[in-house]
Structures are given as C-alpha cells and as structure tokens.
C-alpha cells in the first residue's frame, strides 16, 4: 500500500461521503491495484481503520526532545550557578527546587520542537511535488483514493470507482 508500482499511471476516485470512501477502500483489498494514498479534508478514523494504519511514531521524536530538554534546562541552570558561585537568599548554589521551573519549561519547549520536527520528517513536508497529482476538491468536500496501476488496468479501475458511485479520472 505504501509503495508505488513501477508505472506512471495514477487514477483518482473521488467520493463525497466518508463512509462510502472507507467501504470502497475495504472492497479494493480483493483487487491487484495498490492504493497509493487517500486524500481527505479532515482526519478520518474510518479511513484510517479501512487502511489498517498503525499509530504514528511521532511520539518517539517528542519523547527524545523532552528528555533532551529536561537535561538541557537543569544542565543550564546548574552549570551557570557553578560558573559564578553566588549565594542567593541563603539557598544552596545548586538549588534543585527553583531549577525545576527551568527544567520543566525546557522539557516542554524541546518536546514541542521535536514534535514539529517529527511531523515534518514523517509527514514528508514540505511536499510541493505532491500538488502535481492532486485534486483540489480534496481539501473541501471530497475524499480521493489514488490508485497506482498498470496501463492495461486503467479502464478497469475507472470502472470500479464509477460503479461505486464515485467520480474517476487519470492523472496525466
């Protein structure tokens, strides 16, 4: 499902109903064509289930960022306190309690940076090339199933989408 076949033929089937789109995806499992991608105007869990998608690993990026941020925040506060040992308010030079604030804020900050990085890397963004084979109705009110197939199967795919109540066309 993830990879494309060694062919340039891409056919898109457009549907106006989410439930129908999910049903068509499930029906396609009996055919030899590969679903290249499914476009939708919002995240659809019905489509995710039909495609049997696994959970995104973006959380690992977030976790690594958080751990780095935690140590960076505490490390910065401790290092700078040790650089110039000035006693403030009678507290120890390395005062853990106030440093929790710096550690906490840096944990959140670095987690968020890593989260964004994860979204960019895993989501393959920016992806301006992806706009070449894309139907603009998919950001509005349509769901698009893009299928890669052999040239001789093209008519069969178009027929399949139309028979299921969709609109179909071939990307040039």
């Amino acid at each position: 499902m993830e990879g494309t076949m060694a062919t340039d033929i891409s056919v898109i089937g457009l549907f106006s109903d989410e439930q129908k789109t999910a049903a068509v995806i499930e029906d396609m499992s009996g055919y030899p064509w590969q679903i290249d991608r499914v476009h939708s105007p919002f995240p659809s869990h019905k489509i995710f289930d039909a495609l049997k998608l696994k959970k995104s690993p973006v959380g690992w990026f977030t976790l690594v960022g958080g751990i780095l941020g935690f140590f960076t925040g505490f490390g910065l506060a401790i290092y700078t306190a040790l650089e110039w040992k000035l006693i403030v308010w009678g507290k120890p030079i390395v005062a853990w309690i106030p440093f929790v604030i710096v550690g906490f804020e840096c944990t959140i900050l670095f987690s968020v940076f890593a989260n964004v990085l994860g979204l960019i890397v895993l989501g393959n963004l920016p992806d301006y090339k992806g706009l070449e084979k894309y139907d603009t109705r998919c950001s509005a009110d349509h769901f698009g199933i893009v299928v890669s197939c052999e040239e001789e199967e093209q008519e069969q795919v178009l027929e399949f989408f139309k028979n299921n109540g969709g609109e179909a066309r071939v990307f040039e």
Partner: protein
Amino acid sequence: MSESPQLTYGEIDRTVLDTLRPPTGGYWLVIMVLILGVLLGAACWVYQIFVGIGAGGQNIPVAWGTYLINFVFWVGIANSGTLISAILYLFRAGWRNPIARAAETMTVFAVSIAGLFPFIHLGRIWIVYYMLPYPNQRYLWPNFQSPLVFDVVAISTYLTVSSLFWYTGLIPDLAAVRDKATGVRKKIFTILSLGWTGKHEQWRHYTRGYLFFAALATPLVVSVHSVVSWDFALSVVPGWHSTIFAPYFVAGAIHSGLAMVLTLMIPLRKIFRYERILTMKILEAVAKTIIFTGLIVGYAYAVEYFLAWYSHNAVEMEAFRWRALGDYSLEFWIMVGCNSLVPLLFFFKRIRTSIPWLLGISILINVGMWYERFVIIVGSVAHGFIPHAWGLYRPSAIEFGIMLGAFSLFLLFFLLFLKHLPSISMTEMKETLDHGGDHGD
C-alpha cells in the same frame, strides 16, 4: 439550532472563505484608527526612553504600576486560548471547535503584547540581553533562582509553543484557502501550507502530533500563570506572600480569557454571519464555564481574607482591611463585583442566551480582571509593613498612552488576522460534523 438543517462541508468552507474577501472601506478606517493608537503608544514609549522611567507614575513604594498590571492582564488573556484549544481538545469538548482558532490567535497576540511590557518597564531597553543566558567574559549569567528569570523562560516558551501550535493547526486550512485562491495569493498560501494535500500519511502523523501538542500545552498553560504569580508570591510583601497565588492566578487567567473570547467572538459572529457555525449553544457553553471560573475566583478572594484573619498577622490583616476600605476600595469593589457577582447572572438562561447581555458581561469581566491586577499589584506595596513606607499611585498620561497603544496593537493584529487567515478552523468543523453533527452539544 436544532431546527435548522445540518451544516455541510461545502457550507463551512463557503462561510469561512467568504470572510477573506477584500475588505470594505470601514475596515480600513478602523485599521487606520488602530494604527494611530499604536503610534501614540510607541511615541509615549520613545519619550519614556529619552526622559527616563520616571515619565511613568511608578515610584517608591509602588514601583510596579500599569506596566506590570498590563503584563499580567495580557498573559491572563493569553492563557485561555490554550485552555480552549488544548485542554478542551483533550477532553473532546465539541463546543471548542468553532472558537478554538480565534482563541489560539488571541493567545499568540496577547502573549506578544504581554512580552512587550517587561521591556517597557526596563527603562534601559538596550541592556535587555542581560536576561539571556549567553557566555560572557564576566561569567555573569541570569540568576535562575529568580522568579523574574522564571518569567523570561516561561513566557518565551509559551510564545514559541503557542505560535507553533497555532501554525500547525492552520496548515490544513491554509491548504483549503490555497485550493480556492488564484495568482499571487495562491503562491503565498502554497508556501505557507507546505504543500499539504491531506493524504492519509500526513493525517496519520498530524493527528498524533497534534495530540502531543495539546498534551504538552496543557501543563505549560498552568505553569505559565503559576510562574507569573510567583513574581509576587515569592516575595514577603503582605498581600502577595500567599500559597494560594498560583491556582488563584490560573483561575483568574482562564476567567479573563473566556470573557475576552466572548468579547471578540460576538461581534465577529455578527459581522461575518457565523450564526450557523458559532451557535448560541457554544456561547452558552462559554458562559457556563465563566460561571465556574467566576466562582473559583470569588472563592479565592474569600480565602485570601480567611488566610489573613486566620494568620493573626497584624500586617496581613491590615493590608486586607485596607484593600476593601482604604484608598483603593473602589477598585477593589469593581474587581469583586465584575469578576464574582456579575458572572452569576449567567445562571439565568435568559441572560446567557441574550447577545447584548453576553457581550456586556464579558466586557465587565475584562474590566474587573484588569482591576484585579491593579488591586493585587498596587494595593499590596502601597500599604506594606510600616506606615512610614505607605504611598499612593496614579498612572501618568504616558502610561495611559502606552496602554492605549497596547490595546490598539492587539486589536490591529486581530483584525489583520480576520481578513487574511481563516478565523474558524474548517478542518475541525468538518471533523465535528463527521462525529455526529451538532457541534454545539
């Protein structure tokens, strides 16, 4: 709402994208007035830089006046945006969706305005870099044990995180605008939307990432106003040195932010004809939440008095007696009335479903919350430990000018946003329809 037909995906797009059409002359007139307000504020600040910080009315003992009041006020406004977008997202509260985008935008602009005030209050703005942890020959670093440095860390983190959260949420909608746009506008939105096509792989990572964003922003929003409260609570000043301050400030921040959401969204609803998206049920849900936060704030006011009495500390007792009966008693009663008593009117359905009442009460809460910060910040140091050190404070014309500039700048940013970016999340609205229709529930 229930009688009107269900919204469709296309109708949501049409309603929201219609708001991005070229504005009328009236819009530009308001923009011009706001620019004048910003210029006035900037001129006052420049004057203060040349003349000195004494151009403001702040002096001993009240060294923190409107600059700090406005700082806390705007951070408070900013807090609620993240509450609505992140916390209510985690709780799957459907009524957040039509107001989340405007609330997030409000957050980004409000925290930027808040961040200006410490700079203004510094006086010698050119040495602001002392606050940054950079290696230098003198081995001098910011003191990470100081609540003022906590503030620098917390506010800058909050600004960064809320901006990224806002932009990430915007990406699918920017793609929707791109797909309807032509010419240069299309090119700009193509770049801004990062070539988003809404394919399943993008959504798979996006939904997970957005969930983590919300989960991280939630503790951050609580921490930010707690840190702001510690600017006061970690001192020994009577009226400030209290353990209740962090939750008290967080509740107050949410209270003021929700009120500001109503103040901004009600005119928006009328002007952009958002009635079908921003239903009365949603405004009612905000009003009900305001009752809850108003009760918490009222409880905090009462507990402060209880703690002062229970401590048997003469200075603390006197500080609180003076708050209610002294020179700033008018400000105190405005605070109590607007923040704790007026919101109770929302218990009446007739009032919380009436647009003029909703707008009027939300404005009163904004006024009350500004005065709350006045009472806390000015009232405590003006009447401290010894009568010899007591003194009163009134803001100077320069401070009023800067305050006017700040409000103008906020509204200017917000109005520019309204005509250039989608003010309601089309993606989330469509998702809400998909999950069962009535987004007001």
